[in-house]
């Protein structure tokens, strides 16, 4: 906690400055509400925010899980089968030039206003960083380690399970963290296009009724959710790769 102290102090200072400027220049509340008003909105509509958050978090979680599954399977196939790598990998990369947000309306046309199109948007956004980070992690492995295992008589599958997959975990987890931050945002944007529940729709409603302090409150909730999601991924990483977080040297004792 201590290491965040300087940032916290600075942030509090910014909030005070903001509060002061709004009051001093008598800025209209719908242009820029003061932090106190935002905080008030956050408290007053907390139940409503919680309700919408649940729905957005659910979309993000399902979409993210789908992306993890599909992304990992695809990455493994790409790195195990050269022919697939040659045909599919360039397409996967080029597919990223298509802005997913622009594809989202299509998904609404095809799948309606329910849960499914949101989940698909999230999955489409999240899947790329996961696939790429895993493919690269699987291929970064020291060729000498592979030679060593082959000399021990290991087959391709054993090399994959015992060396490549564990070696790729840190890389995979950096992809997972990126995807986790994207997931909430993707769900919110998908909701903008049409939904009955969720933080995205709450956000647009607040905007249309000029309740700017509500807009800010939603933004805070969105970043809170994203942070929590990343923390969850980070926690899973620490559980799966204790060695990665434990690099302090012990003395060269005899």
């Amino acid at each position, binding site marked *: 906690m201590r290491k965040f102290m300087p940032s916290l102090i600075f942030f509090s200072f910014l909030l005070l400055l903001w509060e002061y400027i709004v009051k001093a220049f008598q800025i209209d509340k719908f242009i820029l509400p003061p932090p106190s008003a935002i905080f008030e909105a956050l408290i007053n509509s907390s139940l409503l925010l919680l309700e919408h958050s649940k729905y957005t978090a659910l979309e993000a979680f399902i979409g993210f899980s789908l992306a993890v599954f599909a992304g990992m399977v695809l990455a493994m196939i790409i790195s195990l089968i050269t022919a697939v790598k040659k045909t599919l990998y360039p397409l996967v990369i080029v597919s990223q030039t298509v802005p997913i947000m622009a594809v989202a309306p299509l998904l609404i046309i095809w799948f309606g206003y329910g849960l499914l199109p949101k989940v698909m948007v999230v999955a489409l956004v999240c899947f790329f960083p996961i696939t790429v980070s895993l493919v690269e992690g699987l291929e970064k492995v*020291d060729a*000498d*380690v592979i*030679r*060593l*295992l*082959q*000399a*021990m*008589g*290991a087959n391709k599958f*054993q090399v994959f399970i*015992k*060396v490549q997959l*564990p*070696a790729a*975990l840190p890389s995979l987890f950096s992809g997972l963290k990126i995807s986790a931050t994207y997931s909430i945002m993707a769900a919110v944007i998908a909701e903008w296009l049409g939904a009955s529940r969720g933080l995205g729709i709450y956000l647009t409603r607040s905007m249309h009724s000029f309740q700017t302090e509500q807009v800010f409150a939603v933004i805070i909730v969105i970043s809170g959710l994203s942070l929590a999601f990343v923390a969850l991924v980070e926690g899973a990483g620490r559980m799966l*790769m204790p*060695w*990665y977080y*434990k*690099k*302090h*040297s*012990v003395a*060269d*004792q*005899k």
Partner: protein
Amino acid sequence: MSVLSGEVHLRIEELSKEYMIKSKQGYAYQRLPTLENISLEVSRGEFVSIIGPSGCGKSTLFNIISGLEKPDAGKVFLQGRDITGLRGKVAYMLQKDLLLPWRSILDNCILALELQNVTRSKARQQAMDMLRELNLGDFSANYPAQLSGGMRQRVSFVRTMLAGKEVLLLDEPFGALDAYTKSEMHDWLTDSFQKYRPTVLFITHDIEEAILLSDRIYVLTPRPAAIRLQIGVDLPHPRTRDLLVRESFVDIKRVLLKELFN
């Protein structure tokens, strides 16, 4: 050579290997002869070193013995059985320790046993016994990143021994260590060999290291590698560092230097 039974353990018969490499212009392929008619033998429990100029093809020789590559001609015999091109018959150790960072020291040591489908608990027991025997027991729960280079190389060595193969191929295992650590490793290795008596084929650049550790030394020519000379090291065991300045030691060194740099 005192404790040797005289039984030939590993025999290499007239190995030759050449590679095809792209010529500088990139149109045509060029032949690069790497090994030329190499024959050698190692008796059970013997420590044999191979020294030669850098890039002369020593590592290719080990790749062939371990089955990673196939020779163009020639055969490899283990206790009289033809093992040319077969993997998993001998234990191979490289200059880099190549420990897996996500496994504890103990679990790194059991890698080869795991691949042979030995149960984990049995493999761990076996590894723990050897680690304790070689004074590495305290580190068994640590991760490789927590150990120094010298300690990691010892662990890598234990892993090689635990592969359960009677012949060890050591490819410059101390090449990346500083002089002091290397010297410590020699003492440690000599001790370990007194205990386990493996058959060893050892590649090195270091002439003194070769004399200090070996029963016999082969000198290779520059590429394509062929055997230039074979010399027995008749110095008493256990060999200590003060041997380095002894007349008999220096005599052997003189012969080797002359052969290598002539």
